C-alpha cells in the first residue's frame, strides 16, 4: 500500500485507513494520510451526526443525489430521511425552516448549493438567525450552521461566482469561517456544528477535490479548530501575507517562489472571517513590517479593507514600513471567457509561467521591501 492518497470513498473509510496505516507503520516513519477537503467535510458532518441526534442536514440534493458536489455522499444511506432532508428549490423557505428548527432546539446544517443562492434567503440568515439572541436579551439562541461553496469556481460566470465573506462578515451575531485545507475543513465544520450560534461556513468548490496531509490529531472524532483563531501556515520575516480559503494556497506558492529570491513571506491562513483574529495579524506585521492581504472577493468594502483598517487602528500601524496592499478579485462581475476569468482572481505562481518573477497576484518585490 502506497503512502495512501485516499480519494473519495465512503465516509469513515478514511478513518479506517488511517488506523490501519498507523498500526502497520508504527515502527518506521508514519506515512502521511492524504484527505481531500470534500472527504474532510464529509467526515466532520458524519461524526457530528453520529455524536448528537439533534444534528440534521437539509438542502437541495443533499440526500439521494449525495450532494450537488458530493460533500454529503453516503450520509443519507447511513442516516435516512429523518436526518438528511432533500428540500425543494425554496431557499428562503427552507432556510427559515432550518432557523425555526434551531430555535426549537434542534441543530440543523443548512446547505446552500452555492452561497450565491443564499442571497434569496439572506433575510433569514441575518434577521432571523444572527440578531435573535441579542434582540431577545439572551433568551433565544439559534444553533445553526449555514454551509456551501462560496466565491469563484471555473467558468460559471457572474451570477454563480460571488464571494460573500464581506457581506456575512459584516454582521454582529454571526460567526463566519472560511477553511482552506482539509484539516481546516474538518476542524471548522465540527466546531461550527457544536457552536450554539449561527455559523456561516464558506467552502470553496475548487478546493473540494484537493488532497492535503491530514495530521494525526485531525483523525480524532473530537478534533476541533477554535473559531476565531488564525493559523500561521508558514513563518517568515519580510512580509506578511494574510488570506482565507483558496488564495491561501496561492500565497504559499508565491512564498515558495519569493523564498528563492531571498524574500521570506509569513503566510497567515485566517480560517475565521468573524470574529477576526486581529492579534495574530498584528503580531506578524510587527515582526515583518509589511502587509499584503489576499482574497478572492471584490475589493471595495471587503475582507482586505477590514484587515488594513484594523491594522491602522492598532499597535502594528507604527511598524509598517510601507502602506498595506490588497490583492483581490477584479472589480467587475465575473466574466465567462477563460482569459478574462483568470485575470479576475488572484493567481498562483505556476499558473502564470510566463512571468515567474512577478506572477499575477504575487506581492511585488518593492512592496515586500526586499533589496
Amino acid at each position, binding site marked *: 500500500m502506497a503512502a495512501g492518497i485516499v480519494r473519495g470513498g465512503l465516509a469513515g473509510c478514511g478513518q479506517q485507513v488511517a488506523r490501519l496505516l498507523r498500526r502497520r507503520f508504527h515502527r518506521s516513519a508514519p506515512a502521511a494520510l492524504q484527505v481531500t477537503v470534500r472527504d474532510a467535510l464529509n467526515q466532520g458532518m458524519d461524526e457530528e451526526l453520529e455524536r448528537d441526534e439533534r444534528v440534521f442536514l437539509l438542502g437541495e440534493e443533499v440526500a439521494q443525489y449525495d450532494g450537488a458536489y458530493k460533500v454529503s455522499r453516503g450520509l443519507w444511506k447511513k442516516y435516512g430521511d429523518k436526518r438528511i432532508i432533500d428540500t425543494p428549490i425554496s431557499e428562503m423557505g427552507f432556510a*427559515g425552516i432550518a432557523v425555526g*428548527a434551531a430555535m426549537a432546539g434542534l441543530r440543523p446544517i443548512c446547505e446552500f448549493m452555492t452561497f450565491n443562492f443564499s442571497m434569496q434567503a439572506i433575510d433569514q440568515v441575518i434577521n432571523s438567525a444572527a440578531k435573535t439572541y441579542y434582540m431577545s436579551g439572551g433568551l433565544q439562541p439559534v444553533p445553526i450552521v449555514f454551509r456551501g461553496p462560496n466565491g469563484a469556481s471555473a467558468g460559471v460566470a457572474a451570477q454563480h461566482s460571488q464571494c460573500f465573506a464581506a457581506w456575512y462578515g459584516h454582521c454582529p451575531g454571526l460567526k463566519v469561517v472560511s477553511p482552506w485545507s482539509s484539516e481546516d475543513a474538518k476542524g471548522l465544520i465540527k466546531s461550527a456544528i457544536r457552536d*450554539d450560534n449561527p455559523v456561516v461556513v464558506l467552502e470553496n468548490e475548487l478546493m473540494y477535490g484537493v488532497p492535503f496531509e491530514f495530521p494525526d490529531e485531525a483523525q480524532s472524532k473530537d478534533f476541533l479548530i477554535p473559531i476565531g483563531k488564525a493559523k500561521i501556515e508558514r513563518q517568515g520575516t519580510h512580509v506578511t501575507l494574510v488570506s482565507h480559503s483558496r488564495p491561501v494556497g496561492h500565497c504559499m506558492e508565491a512564498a515558495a517562489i519569493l523564498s528563492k529570491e531571498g524574500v521570506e513571506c509569513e503566510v497567515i491562513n485566517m480560517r475565521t472571517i468573524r470574529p477576526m483574529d486581529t492579534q495574530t495579524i498584528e503580531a506578524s506585521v510587527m515582526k515583518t513590517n509589511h502587509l499584503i492581504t489576499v482574497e478572492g472577493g471584490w475589493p471595495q468594502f471587503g475582507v482586505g479593507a477590514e484587515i488594513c483598517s484594523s491594522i491602522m487602528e492598532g499597535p502594528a500601524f507604527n511598524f509598517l514600513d510601507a502602506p498595506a496592499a490588497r490583492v483581490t478579485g477584479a472589480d467587475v462581475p465575473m466574466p465567462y471567457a477563460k482569459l478574462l476569468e483568470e485575470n479576475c482572481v488572484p493567481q498562483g505562481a505556476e499558473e502564470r509561467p510566463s512571468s515567474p518573477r512577478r506572477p499575477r497576484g504575487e506581492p511585488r518585490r518593492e512592496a515586500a521591501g526586499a533589496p
Partner: protein
Amino acid sequence: MRKMLAVVSRVLTAVSQKPTGRVLLATRNFANDASFDIKKCDIHRLEEGPPTTTILTREEGLKYYKIMQTVRRMELKADQLYKQKIIRGFCHLYDGQEACCVGLEAGINPSDHVITAYRAHGFTYTRGLTVREILAELTGRRGGCAKGKGGSMHMYAKNFYGGNGIVGAQVPLGAGIALACKYNGKDEICLTLYGDGAANQGQIFETYNMAALWKLPCIFICENNRYGMGTSVERAAASTDYYKRGDYIPGIRVDGMDVLCVREATKFAAAYCRSGKGPMVMELQTYRYHGHSMSDPGVSYRTREEIQEVRSKSDPIMLLKDRMVNNNLASIEELKEIDVEVRKEIEDAAQFATADPEPPLEELGYHIYSREPPFEVRGANQWIKYKSIS
C-alpha cells in the same frame, strides 16, 4: 333590585375593598356552564368543520373575560404611554383582536408552540409573560422581558418565538418549529400566525409546500383584520379567501371576534395536525381598532363609521360578557370587579415600566453570542470597547 345592586356595587368599587361585595355575590347562584351556538366555519378540502355548538363553563368564561380585558387595557395603556413619548419607535396594537389570542391559547396546550409577527403583545401575554414585563419592554427598561434589547416586536417566552419584524419571515420559522415537533415525536404542534398583508409573501407559499410535503404539525393562521397597513384586502389580494390560499392544504374560515368559535376551530385544527395528517390553514376574520401602528391614525383608508360599527356590534369582550350575563354564568357586577382588578394590575405595571431604569450602558455588548467566553465588542469608535457576555 337591580338598581339597588348597581348602586351598592358602585359604592363598593369606589371604596375598592372587596369583602362586602363578595358576600353579596356569593349568595347568588350561577350556572356551572352553558351551551352556545357558534358560527359555522367555511371549509376548504375538508368533509366537515369544527362543531357549531360548544359548552362554556363559568370558570372558563371568567378566565377568558379577564385575559381579554387585560390584553385590551394593556394595549390601551401602551397607546397612552406612546402618546406621552414614554414608549417610542414601533408599537402595533392588538385591541379588537383579543378573541384570537385568547381563543387560540384555549385550544392548545402550554407545551405547544406559537410564533407570530409584530402585532404580538396579546400573544406575549397569553403565552405566560406578565403585563409588567411586557410594558417594561415597550418602555425599553431593564425589567423588560428582553431586558430592553428588543422592544415591541421582539418579545420571547417559553414556547413563544416572538414577535418578528420582517413580514412573513416568521412563517417558515413556524414550520421549522413544527419540524422540530415532529422530529422529537412529542405530539406537539406549532401555531404560525401571519396577517392578511403577509399572506401574499412568496416565502409563505414555499412553506406551505414543504409543510404539506413533509406533513409538518403546523397550523397556518391568517389573522385577517381586513387591512395590511393601509391597504385593504381587496386592493392587495387577487383572492381574499385566505383559508383557501394553501391550495392543497385544507382550510377553515373562522369568526375571529368570537372567542368560542376560535377555541373550537383551534381544537379542531390541532387534532388534525396531531393526528399526523399534516398542516392546516385557519383564517380568523377579525378587526383592529387602532391603526396599523401608533404612527397611523387609521382613518385615511377606512371610515370611522366602520370602526364604530365593529365596536358596537362585534366587540369580542362585549360578546363574551353578554353571553355570560344572559346565561347566568356571571353577573355584571362580578365582571366589573374583574375590570377593576385588571385596571389596577395595568396601572401597577405602567408605574413599574415608567420608573424602572434603562439597561446599563455597560451591557450594550451583551448577548451577541450564546454560551461564549467573554470578549470585547467595538463601540462607535476604536477606543470605545464594550464587554460582551452571553
